[in-house]
């Protein structure tokens, strides 16, 4: 994947749940995330941030609206094309760091590389070790993920999201479980990647310092984006920390 990849969406609508529990989780969301920029989404719990990220990450289908990745409308592509883009283009960090329990940290990070199939076993191992080293887990490569602390698991999940060197990174509270030092470090890692390697990043955060460090902050409420602020013009944002 050379060249810049940007991510956009237009007028996304999403309803969740059935019958009486039906929730209008996204009410016409449009965003443009160009390569080389850091975007944050902030908003109260339940406003639809994760729902938006799942749709942008091609994990969920919107009820209306379109998703454009690298100038291509991917909304109506078949499942296997979505799978391929998830594997090659998108790195997803979940709010609840989902790791495969019976596998070691290293094996978890190698999992997306196995699907891609571009590297040999030893190259995959080396790359996984380097990525885990970057999140300060160089000494816990062979530990089963169930025996890692919450914060360590979250860092493994960050390393895993970067495994195939994706152009788009979607992160749902990637630093939620981390202490100040580690969350700064993790954010710095992502920010460097985005700036130097011209990737596109959208992250959900409740951390005002992280939000402040992003190029754009999008404020969400009740399934809508009620304001998008570039850096330096956002005195009035209420982030719940």
């Amino acid at each position, binding site marked *: 994947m050379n060249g810049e990849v940007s991510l956009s969406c237009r007028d996304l609508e999403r309803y969740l749940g059935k019958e009486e529990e039906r929730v209008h989780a996204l009410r016409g969301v449009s965003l443009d995330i160009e390569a080389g920029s850091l975007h944050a989404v902030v908003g109260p719990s339940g406003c639809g941030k994760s*729902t938006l990220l799942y749709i942008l990450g091609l994990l969920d289908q919107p009820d209306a609206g379109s998703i454009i990745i690298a100038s291509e409308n991917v909304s109506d592509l078949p499942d296997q094309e979505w799978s391929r883009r*998830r594997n090659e283009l998108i790195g997803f960090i979940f709010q*609840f760091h989902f790791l495969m329990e019976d596998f070691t940290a290293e094996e978890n990070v190698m*999992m997306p590389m196995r*699907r891609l199939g571009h590297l040999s076993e030893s190259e995959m191992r080396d790359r996984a070790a380097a990525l885990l080293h970057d999140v300060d887990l160089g000494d816990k490569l062979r530990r089963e993920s169930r025996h890692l602390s919450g914060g360590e698991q979250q860092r493994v999940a960050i390393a895993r999201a970067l495994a195939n060197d994706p152009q788009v990174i979607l992160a749902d509270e990637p630093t939620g479980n981390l202490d100040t030092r580690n969350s700064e470090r993790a954010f710095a890692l992502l920010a460097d990647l985005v700036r130097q390697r011209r990737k596109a990043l959208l992250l959900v955060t409740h951390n005002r310092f992280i939000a402040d460090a992003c190029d754009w902050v999008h404020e969400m409420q009740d399934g809508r984006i009620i304001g998008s602020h570039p850096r330096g013009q956002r005195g009035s944002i209420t982030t719940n920390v």
Partner: protein
Amino acid sequence: MTAPLYIALRFATHRKRALLLSLVGVVFGVAIFICTQAQTQGFAQYFINSTIGSSGAMVLRTKFQPRYEGLAVAAKNTTGATNRRNYFEGVSNVSEIMRVSRQFSNVVACAPVLRGNVSARAGFENASVEIYGIDPASQLKATDLATQIIAGKFDDFSNNTSAVIIGYKLADFLNVGAGDAIQILSPGGEYWRFTVAAIARSGVGTVDLNRVYAHARVAQRLLKKPYQASMIIYKLRNPSRAPELANHFEELFQHRTESWQEREEGNLQIFFTLQVSAAITVSLIILLAGFGIFNVLTMSVLSKVREIAILRSMGYRRIDISSIFLWQGALIAGVGSLLGCVLGAVLTWGISKVPIHIRGLLYTNHFLVVWDWRHYFWATLLAVVAVFIASYVPSQRAAHLQPVDTLRGSSL
């Protein structure tokens, strides 16, 4: 190694006990299939070999001529009496028929036999017997008579025209051994005296109880028959093609010709029924094993819902996910049928050593088995198909799980 296979192997090691259990099902299904087939076919094959060995793969007897009725009648009623035949006792042109027969590639050897029913006597015992007037040299080529001798010598029979060979059950009944004398009552009412040169055991109950082999010339005089042979028995290279050849010979020589399949139809049906009933039992075992695998894999899918969602989110396609579970099935099928074949062979060997005492339809002192690679092939194929069907449904279920349902579910 592909990613799905790698993950399948890893998942398999996490659920060792459940997989081991379903493996045991496949191993036993395959093993029992193999050894039941080996047994049922073992008895059938032994019977077939014995009957062909003692009475030939094909028998030509009784000359016939088509009976021509009035042409006008035949034309009006074509379905009715067209196949009527007039039969004449005995075989005519024996040497000519044998000469032509030998030119058929399937014919290994043939031998003329003069057959008749008489009664035999030794001491106070009387038995009605079937006398086979044979030419010793041709009979040896066309049947297994030489190997069937269990007492006395075949040569003592060949060299002595007043000698006979009798079935071992008949010998028991008349209470005679090799070297003893028996008397045979001719149709003319006089007793002829013979020496029992040898005792034969064919393995076929009726043959061993009824048959007396004598020299053809002697038999012809004893029975007062105008013809040299009442039948010709054939040894065939490929006995399974006997029915076709019998039909052909019947046309060619205008003599009634019967294959061993036709002769033993009743007995063959018994063996066939046994084989089918064994196959049904085994199918049930394999069905149960398949059901077990279905359960194990369904449970495995349920316990890996989270992992499946993670894999899907990383870009694993539906086909990758279903492959993971199909691979697990394939591993069970592969390892299971391999071990099953080994166990099947061991069981078959063990069963062939089990002593049993059968003296009725056939003669044996232990279980009879056949070793046939096709049993192993079919057992493996059956297991593979059953396991594939059993793993297909769970694998599709896994492939169609929506990852987002799981990922979102945990956030509630």
